[in-house]
């Protein structure tokens, strides 16, 4: 039997992006229903490291979104604390800063050029010499050719952050429903009138496709495909350790790996500790569809690259490994805006490995666009109808 339900907006996907969109929309007064085909915050949001980074982004629209988001995160956490209390708003926010390390001489030039361009875009980026870098991170390799300190880089626990935002949606009269799969839209006169979820239909004025790497699937089911593809990543987790690394420390070639479009495996060391003492070792990039098979070669290369930055890790036991799929777009920019094919269908996905950091500004931008307010950042480059992203309807 089908239930008759209504909401102002239905957000498909209860990951960090869907949660941030739902939070921003409910803060503007809408009644929001969030549905997810699995457990809330159980997909890509649970498969990463909780990066809130400016350091890995070259000047451009993504950096603008990241700067706005970095400003919004602490404000949002503070407002969630005021609204929901300490317990729910505890998201392990750590403004720990980042240290980008070039271990080879030929990486010095590109790192210096990037840092200079970022400084001109308003990012704090300070070149530090090898001795200073090793004072900041005493376990760091002796082979430091150059390093740049980014004090604004931060980290949080993404599952806690997503669930805190979803709790706010609920407390404002909205709802969150897991294990409910969206199958398509109900369209009347070219405009969204509802969404088919599970066995029933939910009447609503707008639908947000926030399905992360599965945004292409829902888009296709809705008759509005978008070019969002999965890009696999793996993370190694060490046993809890005494203090080894203070900041987010990564190799200078990480920026190039993030920006590349290679299908083949790419590995670049990203090392950081968590609140519980474990050290997370990323990062890998591979386009293998939704193949979840664990590849020992990936883990081996992750471990090797991390030991190159922190030799002390060579003798440390690895407790487990996990992985996930980043939502990848061919031009490496998120998709945020209304679909040109159906009024009332909105997209918020394609953030690749940066969704945690970009979430609050994405939610704010989506709400600004929906309400016709002055947007928090220029939305032009995130448009759904750009050639790299808009996919043709396959009949």
């Amino acid at each position, binding site marked *: 039997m089908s239930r008759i339900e209504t909401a102002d907006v239905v957000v498909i996907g209860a990951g960090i992006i869907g949660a941030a969109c739902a939070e921003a929309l409910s803060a503007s007064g809408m009644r929001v229903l969030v549905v997810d085909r699995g457990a809330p915050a159980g997909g890509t949001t649970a498969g990463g490291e909780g990066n809130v980074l400016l350091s890995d982004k070259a000047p451009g629209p993504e950096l603008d979104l990241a700067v706005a988001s970095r400003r919004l995160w602490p404000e949002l956490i503070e407002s969630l604390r005021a609204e929901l209390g300490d317990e729910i708003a505890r998201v392990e926010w750590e403004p720990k800063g980042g240290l980008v390390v070039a271990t080879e001489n030929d990486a010095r030039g590109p790192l210096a050029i990037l840092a200079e361009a970022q400084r001109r875009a308003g990012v704090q980026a300070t070149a530090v010499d090898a001795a200073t870098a090793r004072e900041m991170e005493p376990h760091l390799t002796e082979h430091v050719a150059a390093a740049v300190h980014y004090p604004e880089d931060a980290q949080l626990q993404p599952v806690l952050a997503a669930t805190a935002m979803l709790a706010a949606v609920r407390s404002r009269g909205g709802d969150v429903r897991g294990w409910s799969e969206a199958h398509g839209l109900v369209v009347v006169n070219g405009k969204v009138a509802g969404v088919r979820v599970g066995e029933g239909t939910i009447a609503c004025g707008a639908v947000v496709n926030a399905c992360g790497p599965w945004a292409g699937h829902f888009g296709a089911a809705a008759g509005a495909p978008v070019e969002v593809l999965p890009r696999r990543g793996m993370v190694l987790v060490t*046993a809890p350790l005494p203090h080894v690394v203070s900041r987010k420390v990564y190799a200078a070639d990480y920026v190039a790996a993030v920006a590349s479009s290679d299908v083949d495996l790419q590995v670049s060391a990203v090392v950081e500790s968590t609140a519980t003492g474990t050290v997370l070792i990323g990062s890998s990039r591979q386009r293998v569809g939704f193949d979840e098979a664990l590849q020992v070669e990936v883990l081996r290369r992750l471990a090797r690259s991390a030991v190159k930055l922190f030799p002390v890790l060579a003798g440390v036991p690895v407790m487990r490994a996990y992985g996930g799929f980043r939502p990848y777009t061919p031009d490496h920019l998120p998709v945020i805006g209304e679909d040109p094919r159906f009024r009332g269908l909105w997209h918020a996905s394609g953030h690749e490995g940066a969704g945690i950091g970009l979430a609050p500004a994405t939610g704010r931008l989506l709400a600004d666009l929906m309400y016709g307010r002055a947007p928090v950042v220029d939305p032009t480059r995130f448009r759904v109808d750009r050639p790299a992203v808009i996919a043709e309807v396959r009949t």
Partner: protein
Amino acid sequence: MRVLFDGEEFEAEEGQTVAGVLLAKGVRSWRTTRGAGRPRGLFCGIGVCFDCLVNVNGVPDVRACQRVVADGDDIRTQTGAELPS
């Protein structure tokens, strides 16, 4: 064979685990927790819970229930989280 536990010599049988040797000698705790320094020893006994961690020959975080002893092993109580020495 013989192994050392915190400097004291213990007799051990071929094929025994570190946990087996220690329990046979009445030792029930060989690690302290990272936060409050509470005692820990064998819990699940099958390699799943990572509660029975101990330092063997300078390597921390060894599961006492899985590690089979070798003659001359230097087993030490692990204090919180340790780095390899």
